[in-house]
């Protein structure tokens, strides 16, 4: 993947926004969590994507981390669904999520 020209958003931010929207769309995910101090974000170019961190991986893609707020459902299975969705979405956008680290930061007790 080539570096975009000056002025275009970094692929890191594009990926972060994509990961954010993909994770939120998974049934059982209520929100993303910005962590202690609200620092768990991907920021750059005046944008801020909450609850997602994308870091360049040595292999060329990105290491993606997420902090989720979920409903009370079986969480390991939910995390697996989120991971699969993120990897698929990233791949179809021509980006590569090398690893997807998921932290269930909180749960809410609300009906589906």
């Amino acid at each position, binding site marked *: 993947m080539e570096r975009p020209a000056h002025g275009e958003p970094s692929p890191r931010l594009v990926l972060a926004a994509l990961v954010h929207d993909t994770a939120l769309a998974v049934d059982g995910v209520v929100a993303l969590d910005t962590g202690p101090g609200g620092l768990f974000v991907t920021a750059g170019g005046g944008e801020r994507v909450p609850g997602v961190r994308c870091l360049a991986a040595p292999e060329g893609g990105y*290491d*993606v*981390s997420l902090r989720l707020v*979920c409903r*009370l*459902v*079986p*969480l*390991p299975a939910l*995390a*697996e669904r989120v*991971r699969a969705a993120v*990897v698929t979405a990233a791949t179809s956008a021509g980006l590569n*999520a*090398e*690893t*997807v*680290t*998921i*932290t*269930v*930061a*909180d*749960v809410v*007790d609300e009906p589906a």
Partner: protein
Amino acid sequence: MAETTKASTPKSEGSSGTGRLETERGTTSIAEVVVTKVAGIAAREVTGVHRLGNAVSRALGAVTQRLQVGDASTQGVNVEVTESDARVWMSVIIDYGESIPEVAQAIRDNVVRRIEATTGLHCAAVDIAVTDLYFPGDDDEPTPAAPSA
């Protein structure tokens, strides 16, 4: 004939609960507050449990909730999570007239069940302290006290 079925089980571990679930493409970890909430909600589901906590944690809880840093569902519950195990301590107030051992056992069963189902962690122990009994007339605060029957 030698069995040469090539074991292609990429993720053999993980099915039987680890708080940190390692997969090929990253790990899943579950925050302690999540386990705490699950335990609190599970305990509240049990008939005979009036509420969780003791006088001190209730007073503290009232303050933290007003400041919006606390949450009713974590009050009176402490949790220790290791790689694959969770250990729970909770203090409860039980409705007067209920059998305390029965209610305690029901709490323990439900907490273990919910934690294992929801988080995939193995729940090693649930320690319960009954800190008070509730009977009508005790109402020291106008709360929607009893769980809706």
